[in-house]
């Protein structure tokens, strides 16, 4: 064996035409308004945006959501109406009806094209009506789907307090968050809590997750003696974490590169670049990386990971040796593919809307390492894919599973190809050791369903073969 052969091949990156299906990034309001409980999201756009939100969010619309459209009319486009006055009228109404702690303006394609100066208008209006206004330009001209959250969190990062407020009587308290969390508890309890942690610089995690997952990941780090000083975003806008210069930050989702950049450049935080805590392998690598930065020897991770894998075996054996094709639409693709390779799957192609090789560096390295260890070929990573070309490749490769958007799922199923609707991965709980099973529950569902149908002999339900 020569030295050259032992060198692992490098990942291949390609870029296609960008003709692919994904959700508009304004969809982030769907989960962010639920996450940030005292917020109100105002999407400044047209009927097209409204129609998308209304249909994409289905039943949520009817639950009196804390979001609305500021629907632009012809007068707004031709500047016959004054943007400032119009927004003031709407925001005053929102303040009166809902009294939120923050109004988030979501800029859209239309406000970009007509160059509405939202960033300029917001501070003036904020001063006038007395509610913070955060501006995020989550538009389809620049971003795809989950990147919407990235633009909102990047904007929110500027609003995090930069000094821990020090109360006169409680000088020993580190920051507002811990004071809030320990509210009403005895001093001794608090002291006891503190002793469970190793001494390390403050760590703030960023990325919006459902509260149960926040608790799980926080507990996971606590086992290693690492204290999470705060999350961006917190449950309430008024509880945004303190970010002082020199704090450490770590991202929990692969689509948060702008937020990471903002935290590093504007808030002078130190980014811990780690693989993302998706799958037991990812979670372990994420914890190990944080531990290594703080000089902590991780405890019991081997056992913990092995135990989780043992619990997954019934699902893993369904997919071992099978192939999965990611068409790409939500930027979780690299992490999911890495986890599925570790489960024994092969991945011919990972489509992805946008690939930040720096922010995802550790994740990409883990993907390469995983492929080498599992002895499977490295996937082709296709940035800005072309759905039409991808379909031709799918017909050719005949993968066992295609992870794709809903526009393609039914047509592919009708042609006898198993599909999993990709958007579910953004709404399901997939992070940490605890939720590894949920990821596989999603991945194996089409295979389990189609297993029970396979003897019926009706795989292909379209009249003619698909045109090639």
């Amino acid at each position, binding site marked *: 064996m020569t030295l050259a052969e032992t060198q692992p091949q490098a990942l291949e990156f390609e870029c296609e035409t960008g003709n692919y*299906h994904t959700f508009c990034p304004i969809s982030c309001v769907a989960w962010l308004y639920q996450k940030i409980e005292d917020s109100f999201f105002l999407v400044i756009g047209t009927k097209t945006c409204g129609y*998308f939100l209304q249909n*994409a969010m289905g039943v949520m*619309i009817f639950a009196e959501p804390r979001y609305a459209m500021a629907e632009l009319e012809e007068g707004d486009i031709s500047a016959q109406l004054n943007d400032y006055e119009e927004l003031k009228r709407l925001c005053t109404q929102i303040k009166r009806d809902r009294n939120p702690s923050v109004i988030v303006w979501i800029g859209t394609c239309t406000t970009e*094209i007509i160059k509405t100066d939202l960033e300029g208008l917001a501070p003036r209006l904020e001063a006038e009506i007395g509610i913070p206004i955060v501006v995020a330009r989550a538009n*389809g001209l620049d971003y795809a789907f989950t990147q919407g959250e990235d633009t909102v969190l990047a904007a929110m990062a500027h609003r995090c307090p930069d000094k821990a407020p020090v109360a006169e009587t409680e000088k020993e308290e580190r920051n507002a968050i811990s004071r809030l969390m320990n509210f009403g508890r005895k001093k001794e309890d608090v002291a006891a809590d503190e002793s469970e942690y190793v001494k390390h610089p403050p760590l703030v995690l960023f990325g919006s997750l459902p509260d149960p997952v926040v608790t799980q990941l926080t507990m996971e780090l606590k086992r290693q003696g690492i204290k999470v000083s705060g999350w961006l975003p917190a449950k309430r806008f008024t509880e945004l974490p303190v970010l002082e210069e020199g704090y450490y930050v770590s991202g929990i989702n692969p689509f948060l590169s702008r937020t990471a950049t903002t935290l590093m450049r504007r808030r002078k935080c130190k980014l811990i670049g780690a693989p993302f805590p998706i799958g037991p392998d990812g979670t372990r690598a994420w914890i190990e990386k944080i531990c290594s930065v703080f000089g902590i020897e991780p405890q019991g991770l081997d056992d913990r990971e092995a135990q989780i894998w043992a*619990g997954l075996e019934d699902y893993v054996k369904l997919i071992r040796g099978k192939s999965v094709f990611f068409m790409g639409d939500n930027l979780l693709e690299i992490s999911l593919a890495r986890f599925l390779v570790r489960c024994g799957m092969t991945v011919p192609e990972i489509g992805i809307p946008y690939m930040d090789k720096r922010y995802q560096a550790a994740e990409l390295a883990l993907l390469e390492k995983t492929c080498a260890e599992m002895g499977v070929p490295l996937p082709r990573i296709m940035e800005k894919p072309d759905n039409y070309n991808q379909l031709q490749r799918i017909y050719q490769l005949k993968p066992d599973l295609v992870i794709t958007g809903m526009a393609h799922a039914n047509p592919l199923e009708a042609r006898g190809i198993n599909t999993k609707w990709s958007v579910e991965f953004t709404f399901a709980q997939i992070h940490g050791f605890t939720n590894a099973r949920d990821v596989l529950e999603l991945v194996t569902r089409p295979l389990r369903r189609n297993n029970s149908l396979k003897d019926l002999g009706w795989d292909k339900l379209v009249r003619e073969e698909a045109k090639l």
Partner: protein
Amino acid sequence: MKLAYWMYAGPAHIGTLRIASSFKNVHAIMHAPLGDDYFNVMRSMLERERNFTPVTTSVVDRNVLARGSQEKVVDNITRKDAEEHPDLIVLTPTCTSSILQEDLQNFVERAQLESKGDVMLADVNHYRYNELQAADRTLHQIAQFYIEKALKRGELPTQKTEKPSVNIIGTSTMGFHNQHDCTELKRLMADLGIEVNVVMPESSTVYDIQKMPRAWFNLVPYRELGLPLAQYLQEQFGTPFVDITPMGVVETARCIRKIQQILNEQGAAVDYEAFINEQTLHVSQAAWFSRSIDCQNLTGKKAVVFGDNTHAAAMTKILAREMGIHVVLAGTYCKYDADWFREQVSEYCDEVLISEDNGEIGDAIARLEPSAIFGTQMERHVGKRLDIPCGVIAAPIHIQNFPIGYKPFMGYEGTNQITDLIYNSFTLGMEDHLLEIFGGHDTKEGITKGISADSDLAWSRDGLAELNKIPGFVRGKVKRNTEKFARERQIEQITAEVLYAAKESVGA
């Protein structure tokens, strides 16, 4: 600017896409930013479509913003022409391209030079028209294009068919129960001895358009789609049209009588009176239902109707005229065609409401407290909140309004379906009311105690807090499983960690 939480009719391009994708072998290319192709998702999900929706996007991104689309749109059109060989490609503008004001017509002309199929720019302004108006305009535009083309080439067969025949205009993809209505109308025509010449646009090709002048008349069952095309055909070829929606017993009869008159004017000598009589009295159950004692119970009950023009008007007439129900309010969101609606319903209801604001309709329902609502999915949710039953009669609709079973709203079978819908809405309301008076079917307390009922297990504060974050409908199950897990391991206090350890252990 308008503060809006919800809308009844979608944006203009949706209308255009509905028409384009109704045809066979027509492809639409949207000039739009990433993410605006949500139409494909809706069509694939709502209609459970087996084929790929023939809609792609020529993506407008930062580069387009800076330099214009340049070759991009033309390339995308010619590429699609080569890949799929569609008969027609419809370039579809969106709100974004409306303000960019690129010369899309020029792109179309350039692409036409290289394309085998036809290329056309949909003539719809996002800021002037909604989904319904745009669909109407696009259908007219496409039909006119192919008729003029055939005329120019002298290929247009203008001779009428031998036997009486009809074009059914207006059934389209994503239309409310359109597929079933279409089948029912075809059956009705067969019963009347009328050949169906062309159904437009659903499942037709653009080459069917030039056959349209051969029909003796056009039937336009929906107010919202097809009228301009029927009027155009009348101007061009003198083809008369019937625009009476055959929905409900009385209106179906009126529609058939109009058809009879039109055919007889062209020398057909048909008499449909016996057919109408037989269908009304013995095939449709609706007339008999109106006389039955069930329907007596509905007399004078209050109802609110809201929807598009076609369905809201037809339902109002059925409720008031055929069932003796008191329609306290009839409304439509088709503001652009409000006069027609007022004229149709004003004698059948107390109050007419023309509005696109779902808040206004919700308030009106709360104020009027009807026994039943007939509206869109939005009204169904208002009904849920106010505990008033609702039958869904018009778009916007969810996936459950695309039933697999045969459920037309038109024709004689349609009258049966509508009767069921109305009757079921009211009885449910009545039953609910009776249950309330007599305190329910069952006692509400469970008879057998759950495994956790006598629990000696203590939940810590953080454990309980985590439990409460779990959605209500699975919380009970999670609680039982966690307690089982804790009991098996002799854990006395359930903390958040125990809760999640239970989740991680297999089978919990």
